[in-house]
């Protein structure tokens, strides 16, 4: 289980408060599909993903981006128990979706970069460190039911 200092908790919450889930979700998902195109293998049902502009204009990508960020909200609300909170999601990603967990790391990096664009200098190095520690915990939790 991950240990958090009070400073880290308030940092994660402060970052989260500055994020508009409906903006960051779609953009982060679009970035992962554009920057790491092999991730498209998991999104056959989302329709046209062939070009960057197709991805950026795809309403289903945007909708799914929002779904992903709303799930991240659960992790923010349950920082001391991310593994249990995500147990069912982990099972889903392993047993039904068959996602290679390295892709969680790729999406996490795209989320960080999208958030960096929004927060700019408010994402100083310590904030980045804490935010990435949080996303690592989320990635580990998503991988926890893989066997």
């Amino acid at each position, binding site marked *: 289980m991950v240990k958090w200092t009070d400073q880290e908790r308030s940092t994660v919450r402060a970052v989260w408060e500055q994020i508009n889930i409906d903006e960051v979700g779609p953009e982060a998902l679009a970035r992962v599909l554009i920057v790491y195109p092999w991730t498209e293998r998991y999104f056959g049902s989302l329709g046209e993903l062939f070009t960057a502009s197709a991805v950026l204009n795809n309403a289903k990508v945007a909708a799914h981006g929002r779904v992903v960020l709303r799930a991240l909200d659960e992790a923010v609300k349950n920082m001391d128990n991310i593994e249990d909170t995500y147990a069912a999601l982990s099972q889903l990603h392993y047993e039904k979706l068959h996602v290679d967990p390295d892709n969680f790391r790729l999406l996490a990096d795209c989320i960080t*970069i999208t958030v960096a664009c929004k927060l700019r200098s408010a994402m100083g190095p310590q904030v980045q460190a804490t935010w990435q520690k949080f996303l690592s915990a989320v990635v580990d939790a998503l991988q926890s039911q893989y066997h």
Partner: protein
Amino acid sequence: MSSLTAKDKETVKAFWAKMASKAQDIGADALNRMLIVYPQTKTYFSHWKDLSPGSAQVLKHGKTVMGGVEYAVTQLDDLKAGLLSLSELHAFTLRVDPANFKILSHNILVVMAITFPEDFTPEVHVCMDKFLASLALALAEKYR
């Protein structure tokens, strides 16, 4: 990993032109972030007295590293040949585990996003990521 297409090279050069004047600050910020966010990277700098943000050594080294990246932008048509001596330096003298190139690249991308939020579109992001990955590969060429 694939090599850069003509369009990739154009995009890299165009974005670099925008950031050239801020390159040194970006280098220092990226290096600083790497040392803080990935503390294991500090092991390569145990000979520095001061690893704190804004220290003269971090600033100077950020400048040096970005100088290397800037040089790589002029060698896009053959990064392996262009970066041969830098590769030998990293392989035989510095002996940096090449996994760290990816770590520094990530931090360079984060600082680019922070500095140019409007220009660092997903299309620019993928090109810069490919460029830095190709750079890292060229840098690792002489390792073994």
